[in-house]
């Protein structure tokens, strides 16, 4: 599937939505008082960064970097596989960090019976 050559609109859509995702996530992580909301914010930031990274690797008219039998003889232009490999790693790492964060939230709930940071003494700053 080819995205066409409306590069300006595509730039604004992909970069714009990625940057806005980062900002929305940042807002949630910094302003919200619920620990779960904060973790949601962090994972939204991660999503934005991943979108940004994949967009950077895109090449106009490129195909997916897979030499399937259909394309191998045509010597096609391919998008950059490196950012994709990096994002693959980053997604898995992000999941691991989210899992640990949520485990900590459950632990904090056990002790405090709340996930609101205003009521958890040491988390205020």
């Amino acid at each position, binding site marked *: 599937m080819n995205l066409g050559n409306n590069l300006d609109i595509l730039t604004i859509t992909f970069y714009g939505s990625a940057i806005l995702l980062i900002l929305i996530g940042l807002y949630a992580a910094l302003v919200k008082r619920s620990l779960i909301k904060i973790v949601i914010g962090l994972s939204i930031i*991660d999503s934005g960064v991943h979108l*940004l990274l994949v967009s950077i690797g895109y090449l106009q008219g490129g195909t997916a970097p897979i030499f399937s039998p259909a394309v191998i003889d045509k010597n096609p232009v391919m998008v950059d596989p490196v950012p994709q490999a990096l994002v693959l790693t980053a997604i898995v790492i992000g999941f691991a960090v989210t899992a640990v964060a949520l485990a900590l939230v459950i632990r904090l709930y056990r002790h405090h019976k709340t996930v609101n940071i205003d009521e958890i*003494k*040491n988390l205020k700053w």
Partner: protein
Amino acid sequence: MVGTPVQLIAIPLLAAFLMPLLGKAWKELVRITPGVVLVYLLYLSVNLLSYTIDNGRIVEMIAGWSPPWGINLVFSPFSGFLATLMLFMGLIVWIYSYRFKKIEDYDDYEPTIKYYLLLMMLITASVGIVLTGDIFNLFVFIEILGITAYGLTAFYRGRDGAEAAFKYLFIGSFSSVLLLLAIMIIYSQLGTLNMADIAQKAGELKPVYKISALVLFLVALGIEAEMFPLNGWAPDAYSQAPAPVGAAFAGVVVKAGLYTIIRLIYTLFDVGGTYEYLIVMGMVTMVIAEFAAISQNRLKRMLAYSSIGQMGLVLVAFGIGKEEGVFAALFLMFNHAIIKGLLFLSGSYLVYHSKDKYLSELNGIGKIMPLTSFLFALAAFAIVGFPPFAGFWSKLAVLTAAADSGMLLIVGLILSVSVIEVVYYLRVVNRIYFVKRETDVEIQKPTPQAMLSMLVLGAIIIAVGFYPDVITGILHKASAALLDKTTYINEVLSQTIN
């Protein structure tokens, strides 16, 4: 040569994957394995270091692709020295935590295995950060370090540990996002992830990218290295984590963070003004942290702030630049690892059963626990820089370096901050020896192996104090290796596929 640098990473990973199975065979193996691995790695690392000092860097390719195509590990006198130091501290921490009461105090065997696994990986991740020559690989190792550090901080089942760990994780997530953005900017412009290649091509970068990447990197790594506004996690994490882990944070983790900052500034980007920036940030970090330390009434928080202050001093020394500044900074890092390690290790036995670890609970403990108190006092004297202990020489080196560069203001500031340091450390020593004991908190005798690890550190402090030459030779080589950027680039990039 006995082995290659990649074994420093591969063997602990092998052991980590094996440990759950070993535990099924014989439970004691879980406690012993990390120690055996660390001993072997230390042996390997010392051998490699002595080889490197004579013959120059070892650049190891991974997966058979020469730099800049593949990932590579660089074992230079500089990175090798730090890796050896980290492995040594790791071994000491392992000896200390072997059958450490508070870790073993479970009716179940599960947490023990997790503790040793996480501790071993904490050391390995730090070694990986120091050795790697690739920025994305650096990111992966920083994430490994992060996960282990969160797990270890929340290890005790009290509530404060989880709070400290969440705080750490929150700040750490921002750090990883910023790192990823910086890597992205560099890759989009230079099309490479290899450090030497980036250093070579950095001149082609437009200033906006260069500066933004550098700023993103500095903020992200400043979190690990406890730079000033980003160190909110440190005092909590230090005081809530199990005692040996606190020592590992001070001796190993912070070093890894500092290393990356230094590597970035000295090798990757030569943006004007970063050295001055380092000096300013270092000074600010140092002054604020030392003032925070003097107002603490809990032992571990005081030690944590003092540790941040020392890191500030190291940044100042690196900011002075030149051979002397780098030498002084490395010497400080070495001393800080050993001495702060001893302070954490011995201090935690002094306030073992106390709940809040107030300083007032140290009163008169010198008569009850003479040897531990003596070691604590020894470390306290060493860290404030009294002759003839190890700390004296490093502080002297910083002051000489600053004075030689004509930065008299800095000399004055360092000296006055040192006075604060002297005040609060002597206050503690005074409490230990000359104030009458009032609390009835129970006393815990150190286990023999904990005593052994503390004595080794104490012996090193005294030995380096009387014969600083044993360490300065290596340090000079290491600082020369760091400053020689061109050889670094050439040696890494001249590797070919064999």
